[in-house]
């Protein structure tokens, strides 16, 4: 086991990135050849490689759970999948209703409903804006306006009568 040494290797800056890849075995081709030629003669780079080889594996924490853990894991996941499946089936039903092929049907139904509301419904549903007293006043108002007309007609009748009486007196004379 490595013990604290407080010493850090000092690799060549130009090769540092490739040295990391070399440590993991991910370096190929010309880069690998160049490094293989360089490292043996460079104490800093070879020390760096050695340090990576010691340090990096120590950062790995492993955990191997028992068979019981996996049995429990499977049971728990199956229950979660059941729940998710039930939620998804509801979601699928709703999304199926909202699919593109249903849009024209919904749009047509909405237009028909609006048309019926504005035509047939107009006479059926009373307006909620006016109170019953207002409604009665609205019915009487045209009649009241006509009263002036009838008064005018009475005046005309009076004029006719005066004219008739005038003519009669002239004839007598």
């Amino acid at each position: 086991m490595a013990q604290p040494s407080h010493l850090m290797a000092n690799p060549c800056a130009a090769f540092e990135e490739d040295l990391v890849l070399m440590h993991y075995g991910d370096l190929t081709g010309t880069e690998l050849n160049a490094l293989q030629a360089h490292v043996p003669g460079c104490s800093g780079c070879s020390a760096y490689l050695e340090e990576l080889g010691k340090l990096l594996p120590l950062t790995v924490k492993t955990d191997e759970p028992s068979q019981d853990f996996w049995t429990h894991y499977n049971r728990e996941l199956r229950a979660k999948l059941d729940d998710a499946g039930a939620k998804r089936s509801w979601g699928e039903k709703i999304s199926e209703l909202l699919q593109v092929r249903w849009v024209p049907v919904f749009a047509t139904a909405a237009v028909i409903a609006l048309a019926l509301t504005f035509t047939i419904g107009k006479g059926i549903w009373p307006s909620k804006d006016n109170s019953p007293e207002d409604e009665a006043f609205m019915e009487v108002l045209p009649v009241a306006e006509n009263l002036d007309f009838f008064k005018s007609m009475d005046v005309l009748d009076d004029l006719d009568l005066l004219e008739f009486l005038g003519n009669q007196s002239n004839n007598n004379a």
Partner: protein
Amino acid sequence: MKSGDEELVALAQKGDRRAFEELVDRHKQKAYHIAFDFARDREDAKDLSQDAFLKAFMNLKKFDGRSGFYTWFYRILVNVCLDYKRRQKRAPSDEFDETAMKQVEPSHQPAAPIAPDQHVWVGQFSRKVDDALAALPAKQRTAFILKNHQGLSIREIAAMMETAEGTVKVHLHRAVTTLRRSLAEFA
């Protein structure tokens, strides 16, 4: 991608639950270990890997097969793990989890009993590694864990992270440099 995953995915997409459960059986151990590398806690790793399977199940119909199921699923898993780390950062806990330390020891620990001073050193080192990993930026941590802990190739990591191979190499190098500095006293 393991042979047969495509067939199982196709069956699962048609609603075959058993096919999906077979996929879970194939990938659960690897998924758990990746989640454990991020969480470093058994219960959290279990929940995270299960969440990833659930997300995969819910989104299976969106999987178009352009990448392998393996790459697609592990991308989901890594994102779930990164979300978890982000949430954890928002609600940090200074408490030292003794149970987690007892539950899992670093892989280098020998099977034979170790001396008390070495035991202390192992505990200190383990905590220091946890802190150093947690302090890494998300992309560097992901690249490092997938390479150093899981041994994936640079190409596989790039596919999972949806980035260029060169970018993964840069993330990996920066992560190693930062960790090396953080763990200098143990070098």
